[in-house]
């Protein structure tokens, strides 16, 4: 370790320190910055030459006077201490305790940047996770090792939904002790952080949760390293200690905003809405750390929250996220305002890994077709609803009126469910058939004749429907 402190800062702005005359500094190395009042900040080298070294300071550069700033180069990258004692603890973005307890001391430490998993050793995620939520289990199933974000908006109940998933996503009894949660809070409010803590407590998993917290009033640049620290811990829990780890990242929009802030200060060429062109690759480095690895028992399942600025799904943050993750659960303000919980809007929601995690071997044989049929019938019903709003419901054909009634029932009974209501997958499927039976068999082209014979409740069900 270089003990020497340098005082050659030439400028400090936008979270960046520009230093002159520190030769031979390695890219990515950790530095400690001390200001005139002897307060310490942490930073990382993001560009280096003999003449100039550029440092990103996680606590920001506010109040730093270049003349009276000292920098010490630690000659090693950012690393996090790894030990089973991390479970149950709370840290900040660089792994320092936030719970008033002493730091974790361990022999094992790893660079938080991680390295890409070799695609040749990944194991394809297939095991269905029952969350007890019909819109997820029935239509957008989550599997172990998947990265499935929740696209939300301000004021929508994504936190409650995640809490419900954590509570209900039970593993088989013999594996329950190997369930762990890594919770990464990125710029969320104190209230939300407390809500999560309490909900982990009530679901009895608190001893198996590691929290990394950066709140709304904490320095934003720290958010750039926090998910990496959290995921290094998640990888350790999953692939060294055989845990099934659920990683919750909330909210990745705050992460991307911090990235934009630093990119702008560096003068990087912007691509869309001021976000740098490398936002995609940067997000991918985080999201792709989910998954399974051949020959290892544990898994990392990731549920990031992405709030869509102005509810716009084409905004670069949700857009690039959707291009990386294996689907998305989209929440809708409209459904929320109608009092529907969880307000999952079906058409844009998708789970790409569902196709291999459901069906005969995992849930039930007709599941894939039922899901496709519900999507198709609901899409059609939404068209009819649109039409009805123009020409009036009285003008609709009988067939269309059935469709409309189907949409109502689908939203009220299938989508809508209690926050404490834990529906088994067979319950969800049976509910699905009950609703589909309100439509005549001719209208159900995504299911087979055999499905119809077995599960459709017949013409009487169609006729009874309003």
């Amino acid at each position: 370790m270089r003990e020497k402190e340098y005082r050659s800062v030439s400028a400090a702005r936008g979270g960046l320190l520009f230093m002159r005359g520190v030769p031979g500094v390695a890219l990515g190395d950790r530095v400690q910055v001390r200001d005139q009042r002897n307060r310490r900040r942490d930073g990382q080298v993001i560009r280096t030459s003999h003449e100039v070294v550029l440092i990103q300071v996680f606590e920001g550069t506010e109040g730093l006077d270049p003349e009276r700033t000292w920098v010490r180069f630690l000659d090693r990258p950012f690393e996090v201490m790894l030990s089973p004692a991390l479970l149950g603890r709370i840290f900040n973005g660089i792994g320092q305790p936030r719970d008033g307890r002493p730091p974790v001391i361990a022999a094992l430490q790893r660079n938080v940047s991680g390295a890409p998993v070799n695609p040749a050793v990944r194991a394809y995620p297939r095991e269905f996770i029952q969350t007890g939520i019909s819109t997820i289990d029935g239509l957008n199933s989550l599997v172990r090792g998947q990265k499935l974000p929740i696209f939300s908006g301000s004021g929508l109940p994504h936190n409650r939904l995640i809490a419900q998933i954590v509570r209900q996503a039970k593993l088989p009894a013999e594996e329950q002790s190997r369930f762990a949660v890594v919770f990464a809070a990125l710029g969320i409010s104190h209230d939300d952080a407390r809500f999560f803590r309490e909900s982990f407590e009530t679901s009895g998993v608190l001893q198996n949760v590691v929290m990394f917290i950066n709140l709304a009033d904490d320095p934003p640049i720290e958010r750039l390293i926090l998910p990496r620290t959290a995921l290094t811990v998640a990888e350790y829990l999953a692939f060294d200690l055989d845990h099934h780890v659920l990683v919750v990242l909330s909210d990745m929009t705050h992460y991307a905003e911090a990235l934009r802030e630093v990119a702008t200060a560096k003068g990087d060429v912007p691509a869309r809405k001021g976000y740098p062109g490398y936002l995609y690759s940067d997000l991918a480095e985080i999201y792709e750390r989910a998954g399974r690895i051949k020959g290892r028992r544990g898994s990392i399942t990731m549920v990031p929250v992405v709030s869509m600025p102005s509810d716009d799904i084409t905004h670069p943050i949700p857009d690039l996220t959707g291009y990386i993750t294996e689907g998305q659960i989209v929440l809708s303000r409209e459904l929320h305002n109608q009092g529907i919980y969880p307000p999952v809007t079906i058409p844009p929601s998708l789970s790409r890994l569902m196709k291999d995690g459901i069906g005969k071997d995992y849930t039930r044989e007709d599941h894939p077709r039922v899901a496709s049929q519900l999507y198709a019938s609901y899409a059609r019903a939404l068209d009819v609803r649109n039409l009805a709003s123009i020409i009036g419901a009285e003008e609709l054909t009988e067939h269309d009126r059935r469709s409309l009634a189907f949409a109502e029932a689908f939203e009220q009974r299938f989508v809508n469910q209690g926050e404490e209501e834990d529906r088994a997958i067979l319950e969800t499927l049976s509910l699905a058939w009950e609703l589909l039976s309100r439509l005549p068999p001719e209208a159900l082209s995504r299911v087979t004749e055999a499905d119809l014979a077995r599960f459709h409740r017949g013409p009487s069900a169609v006729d009874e429907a309003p």
Partner: protein
Amino acid sequence: MGETLDINGPIVTVRLPGVMNGEQVRIGALGLVGEVIGREGDRAIVQVYESTESLRPGEKVEALGHPLTVELGPGLLGQIFDGVQRPLRGLVEQGGDYIARGLSLPPLDRDKAWRFVPSSDLTPGMTLAAGTVLGTVQENPTLSHHILVPPDVEGELIDLVGAGDYTLEQMIARVRDRTGMPRELRLYHRWPVRVPRPYRRRDPAGEPLLTGQRVLDTFFPLLKGGKAAVPGPFGVGKTMVQQQIARWSNVHVVIYVGCGERGNELVDILETFPKLTDPYSGRSLMERTLLVANTSNMPVVAREASIYVGVTLAEYFRDQGYDVVVVADSTSRWAEALREVAGRLGQMPVEEGYPAYLASRLAAFYERAGRVETLAGTTGSITLIGAVSPPGGDFSEPVTSHTKDIIQTFWALSKELADARHYPAVGWADSFSAYVGAAASWWAEHVDPAWAERRAAALGLLTEADELAHIVNLVGPEALSPEQRWVLESASLIREGVLQQSALDPVDSFSSPEKQFVLLDLILEIHDQGRKLITLGLPVQQLLGLPLLGRAQRLKGTYGSDQVPSLRDFVQEIRAAFEPFYRDYGRGEGEPTPRAAPGGSFRRGKRE
């Protein structure tokens, strides 16, 4: 030997006098490999294929004396390589589950001996042209690998080994080149990825690339040697379309380039392809497939290289006289890698941060597709299919719009269709194919002369229905005439019964050309009969309630490609369903009689 000066992410400035543009260099204690992309005096700018974390100014740099090349020889098929052709399975043995830096491994196995059978018509003293077939290695039961004189070698054959087992480094022939120097030839050679391999002559694209997907083959066909793009917002099915093509296309070799996309998608292929059978050879699909994988979390510079690595491997198989399809998922991620490097070099961005040379680089890449007469005088082809991932699904963005100007077949994926789980979500309004005329003659000859006419009729119905749906949305369904109501219904039959094709349905995932045609023909038959009856006075409501319609929509999943005769018999059911109406409403003039059963001389397994 030179020195590292400045490290800016993947872009490293070095002092290295005399190094060439495009030359490979090795940097620092870790031995990171990169490529010179610019020079200024004794300084060179290097893009590095691996993460530069922990690299310091002052570390040494060494020029390697050659550009980025690939190894071409037996052992390529069934492999998974990274963006610069490092064998990923081999890297696991060296570096474990995570890709460690600075590892270098030859792409092809040096220890394995291959049975080489020399060409019988070669004798010492003969003059060998570049590209001459020296002999063959049966690489696997599916593919016979032709060992070629490399494109940059020609001259007098000094000697050629007899049949026997040889490893890659053993000499198999010697050729005296122009300068009189003997050159030793082996089972493999190297080729620089940024230089297209030469051929004798470019031929017009040939017969259709049959993918087994109805909306592609029947509606927006692609030819072998053609170029196609699959644009669409996230989650609408670009990867699935490409995977379906990789599975079912009537080609000899498939090269799947995962360029900046998900790791799990490659695992999906690695786990499923070995268990699937090629409908043409009857062998495991993995035997004809090769993967180049640079996932989104792998270094961005190697991502830029990956598509060139993929297409150079394709050219090598083309030069052996094979039909190759290259799917690149996604060319947008390649363009973004280009943009990132340009940005770090401080090059002037022109649109959305992309450098001015984006369009020309894209065009040059797609130009490597084509059907050619090879140096050996055989015919080979490369069909290139690139996915495009436009930000926000906006097709007017630079990568999509430039690509659209280059390719001939455009499969525009639509979010509306995908949201309704209508897959493949190829939108008929925005997609196009410039190959319909050429494809029509093939279909007419091999399947049915009425193909072009039936295709046009179906597209006409779909377009008309879209316009009618528009009217309905303004003034309601009552404004439509009975004929128009029937058009809406028929279009919906075409959508559900023909276009919609689930990749996950074992019966319908692949649809033979006959099945494609017969299905379309039957559904149009229903339309024609219905229209006739409406003109005879039958109320359209009676038609709409026919259980026949539901049955017709399910035909595709009921009869597989090997049950086309039974599928054809459905025409009896159609007749039976309409017969009572004819009894009540008369037959009128010129009743549309069901068309004669489609001809169809297409044989599965036929592949020229």
